[in-house]
């Protein structure tokens, strides 16, 4: 039957060792990498870790009440990608985006004030942990409706294309978001219109309490990019050098007008889906995995590698942590004394009521 053609699916996109917590515990292979960038990235990952641990503590003490989804353990994707974001680019996140906010240069005080609902917060106290914005640093918005910012990022990319300055949009989302139909609608639209958007899926295996094996027929999500004819790369999301490598290549292609790119960054969250506890996801075999995953720590693996090549002294490392703690404690203290939004903010921020001036 010349006119017939069949294929039983291949498993080409399965994660293999990347999914195995026993692998990738060794220090990173960073020879030939941009060491200054890695040192800066290390700093930033440490800051994110310390800020989120602080938030976790405040959640556990009941001081912070809004739902907080911590990215502790998965700092490298945010920092690696942010290294290639330039002014004019537009980045979007989701519910677990403290890391994206800080990686782009957001102020710890602005975040710590926001999670306390203060008027000095990045969203002026109206959004809390799940609704962050920082346009000066390129963060155009993070929201907790799973998948919602994916088409929005595609539209921001369309705007960048219309502007014609070689800017791009970045969409951070998780493996769970790939189950929302809008993810596919957005990928098709981006591929069809050759929109400059970088799709970054942080595959941490979980959607709240459910492992990806209980939600999808395969553990890797690159197969979706292939279906939508979008070039993709997959990397150890806890390896800053690897993340930087795949991002560099993808961003160059995007800015060169080749259209969208897709990154799957394999990582793992150390805390529960929401809140500060490590064992939040009761009923999910996690404890044993978590111990192994902690050995794939994006921070220590990079730090040791940098020490080994003599680019970093143990002393400097200690100091980085210490400085981060000082910055965070000061920011927290200030935020604590900041004021809440005025009562009128409830109604005064709904409509602009304004009208465009003619161009």
């Amino acid at each position, binding site marked *: 039957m010349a006119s017939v053609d069949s294929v039983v699916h291949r498993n080409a996109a399965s994660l293999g060792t990347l999914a195995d917590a026993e692998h990738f515990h060794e220090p990173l292979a960073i020879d030939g990498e941009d060491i200054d960038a890695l040192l800066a990235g290390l700093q930033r990952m440490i800051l994110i870790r310390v800020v989120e641990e602080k938030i976790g503590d405040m959640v556990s003490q009941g001081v912070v*009440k*809004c*739902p907080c989804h911590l990215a502790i353990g998965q700092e490298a994707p945010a920092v690696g990608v942010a290294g290639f974001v330039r002014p004019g680019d537009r980045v979007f996140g989701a519910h677990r985006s403290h890391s994206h906010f800080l990686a782009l240069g957001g102020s710890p005080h602005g975040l710590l004030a926001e999670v306390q*609902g*203060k*008027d000095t917060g990045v969203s002026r*106290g*109206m*959004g*809390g942990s*799940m*609704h962050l914005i920082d346009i000066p640093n390129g963060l155009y918005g993070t*929201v*907790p*409706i*799973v*998948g919602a910012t994916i088409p929005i990022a595609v539209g921001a990319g369309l705007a960048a294309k219309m502007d014609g300055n070689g800017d791009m949009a970045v969409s951070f989302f998780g493996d*769970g*978001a790939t*189950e*929302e*139909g809008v993810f596919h609608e957005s990928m098709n639209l981006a591929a069809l219109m050759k929109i400059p958007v970088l799709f970054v899926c942080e595959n941490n295996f979980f*959607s*709240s*309490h*459910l492992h990806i094996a*209980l*939600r*999808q027929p395969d553990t890797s999500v690159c197969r979706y990019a292939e279906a939508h004819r979008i070039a993709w790369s997959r990397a150890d999301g806890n390896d800053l050098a690897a993340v930087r490598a795949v991002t560099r290549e993808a961003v160059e292609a995007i800015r060169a007008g080749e259209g969208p790119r897709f990154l799957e960054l394999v990582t793992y969250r150390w805390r529960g889906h929401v809140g500060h506890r490590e064992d*939040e*996801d*009761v*009923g999910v075999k996690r404890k044993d995995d978590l111990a192994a995953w902690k050995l794939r720590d994006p921070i220590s693996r990079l730090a040791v590698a940098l020490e080994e090549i003599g680019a970093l002294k143990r002393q400097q490392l200690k100091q980085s942590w210490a400085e981060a703690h000082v910055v965070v404690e000061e920011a927290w203290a200030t935020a604590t004394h900041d004021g*809440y*939004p005025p*009562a009128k*903010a*409830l*109604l005064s*921020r*709904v409509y602009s009521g304004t009208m465009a001036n003619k161009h």
Partner: protein
Amino acid sequence: MTTTGYGAAIRDGFEHLLANHSEVFTIGQGLWSPWYVGNSMTDLDSQFGRERVIDTPVSELGCTGAALGAALCGYRPIVIHPRVDFMLLAVDQLVTQAAKWRSMFGGQVCAPITVRAIINRGGEQGAQHSQSLQSWFAHIPGLRVVMPSTPTDARDLLIASVLSDDPVLYLDDRWLYGLEEELPPIEERNLANEGPKLTRTGQDLTLVGCSYSAHLCREAAARLSANGIECDVIDIRVLNPFDAALIIKSAKKTGRLLAVDGDWRSCGMAAEVIASVSEAVDPRIMRAAPRRVTLPDAPAPTSNPLERSYYPTVDYIVQRALALVGAQQETFE
């Protein structure tokens, strides 16, 4: 005497349905999680098996449509949306499909699907995790909308919803999970015969609400009684199809109406209550203009002080009720 809470009562309803009706199954997000839907479904998966208690991918529209398909084939699925906000991704299947298939196909099929969505507000969750929107769904012919305000109703109206041959939206509110009461034996009722209920009687004012608002109305009525003002309190229970007869009767008696709703004001359930009464009651026998208590015209904020001022409270209802009862003197400009 042992009392049962609202959440546990919902679980009793699930247990009864799964144990006694083999065509019942439940599907949605969080069903294999111990915390996702509070204590309202704890361990149902181990008790009845994961073939009948199905946790799902993050695909609201697809999962709701799949449940509808099973319903068309003789099953009685209960879809779980842990938040109304998430269910909005599934309105096509709920409103344009489930609610219309029977009529669209000349009454030849029925779609006994129950969609249970949880109103989960407060806690500084903000604009995208706080919507209730019962007014939207009460607007749709073909879709029965149920909102229990007591543990007994939470259990028995869930059972009635699932056993109804029509599509039903069942909304429960996390803020009611604290309520406790002694539960009577389970009764399998016909949802088509259920409707608004008079839960307290008085001569001075008719207080109407559903779900958590009905609870607030009961609390307010108790406080008002202490001030010598006696209220009829009506718990709507079934918002669609909406039977206003009891409310109309009460308004004719008291001549005063205060409609309370935890949804937004414009085109909301409180507007429907007032419109239904205004159409049916000779205005000359009303002793005051009816009034609404609803959410302000804004998305839900996160900041604690704003959030506290956002939701209707017993205090506020009492205050509005007092103004209303004094309203003969109220001047209309």
